[in-house]
């Protein structure tokens, strides 16, 4: 009985060749798969960034009222504006304070004196020849208060100049908005471009709100009521925000191949929710 161990030379060579071939195929597949996954992940990140940009633009800028001073300065990749941080309803007022209903407040954070300011709706006075308008007032303090009917309130301390805002033009239930002056702009940090946010009244440094973007990843264009491009903040009723993002520079794979990167852009057309119909422009 013959028991043979081992392989012939031909078998060994064939096995080695096959092993190398299959191994190379598997390595190639692995690297290709890795590149595909990295590409997909990058693409998802880009799309997520752009979607966030659309939401950000919609929330931060849709409520700006044209011609009211809500837009303060415009640039191609920079915007200074009133960022709305609260809405409340007054229950009583005097020259140094407005008390709002505690149970009916809207906002994204607590209101801060100095950082936030007020916009009070003045109903206008036909005898005095004044029109309904939002009158800006400083917020000098926030404290607990009580409404005339005994319900809990919040005292928004301010300074009302009767010559500018006669108290008869403030009526029960008048809405009060709170805002802080903000700046949004494209800036570079640690090698990447970001859409940054900075509170002009709250101080502090610019903080990234969205990104990373490309070097031209945030562009703004503005239009007036007729749809004509404008750079005058008082005339703007609509704007176009363009966001561009791309995946980080892909790694070079062995044998010099470079997987494809991904870049995309999103154009957001914003018409102020508080404006009338806007022309499409020329």
């Amino acid at each position, binding site marked *: *009985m*013959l*028991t*043979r*161990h081992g392989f012939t030379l031909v078998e060994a060579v064939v*096995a080695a060749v096959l*092993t190398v071939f*299959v191994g190379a195929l*598997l390595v190639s*597949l*692995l690297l290709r*798969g890795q590149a*595909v*996954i990295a590409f*997909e*992940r990058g693409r*998802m990140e880009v*799309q*997520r960034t752009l*979607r966030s940009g659309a939401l950000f633009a919609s*929330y931060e800028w*849709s*409520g700006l*009222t*044209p011609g*009211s001073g809500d837009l303060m300065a415009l640039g191609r990749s920079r915007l200074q504006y009133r960022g*709305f*941080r*609260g*809405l409340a*309803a*007054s229950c009583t007022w005097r020259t140094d304070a407005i008390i709002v*209903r505690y149970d*009916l*407040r*809207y*906002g*994204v954070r607590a209101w801060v004196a100095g950082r936030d300011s007020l916009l009070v*709706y003045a*109903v206008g006075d036909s005898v005095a020849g004044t*029109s*309904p*308008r*939002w009158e800006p007032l400083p917020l000098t303090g926030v404290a607990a208060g009580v409404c005339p*009917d005994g*319900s809990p309130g919040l005292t928004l301390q301010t300074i009302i100049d009767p010559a500018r805002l006669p108290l008869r033009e403030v*009526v*029960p*239930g*008048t*809405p009060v*908005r709170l805002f802080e002056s903000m700046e949004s702009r494209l800036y570079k940090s640690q090698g990447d471009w970001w859409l940054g946010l900075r509170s002009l009244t709250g101080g502090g440094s610019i903080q990234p709100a969205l990104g990373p973007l490309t070097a031209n990843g945030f562009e703004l264009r503005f239009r007036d009521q007729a749809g004509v491009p404008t750079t005058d903040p008082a005339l703007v009723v609509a704007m176009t925000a363009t966001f561009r993002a791309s995946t980080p520079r892909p790694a070079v794979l062995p044998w010099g191949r470079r997987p494809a990167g991904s870049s995309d852009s999103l154009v957001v057309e914003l018409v102020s*929710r*508080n*404006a009338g119909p806007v022309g499409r422009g020329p």
Partner: protein
Amino acid sequence: MTSNRVERGAAVPLALFVLVVLGVLIGSTLWAAHVESRAGHQALQALKARLAAELAWPDVVDRFDSLGVFAMVPGDSLVAGLWAGAGGVTTGVVVHRLGPEFFLVDSEGRAGVSLSRSAQPTFRSQVVARLDSTVDSATGRATVSLRPLTAPFWSGLPRVD
């Protein structure tokens, strides 16, 4: 002549290795597709919730008369509508009478399905409107209508509890 050969090879380990590699590749691709699908689904739910909130309040404003909103006294709140739409999206509209002249219409859209409860997309839309009374000089009859503020004011801020 007979021979009893004992052959040894690497077919089974190699096949297992190939299967594992293929499994990892397919699994990774499926995972990426799954994550993207969920992200897309979440975005769609958020859009539905937003549209629900945006579309609900004009309908309520149109029905102010029939809802009895003008009979509310300042400080009152009225649940003017609560709807469940397709895909589990729910919408609620509450009207608050702020004072003799002012009304706040608060509309909330909430997505029915989400990745997690904490990430459930919820959108709010508020509109402040002012009453406008006109008196017909011939009949002396007063007509009350709702006039948007100058400028008509909209905000999308969340409620502070």
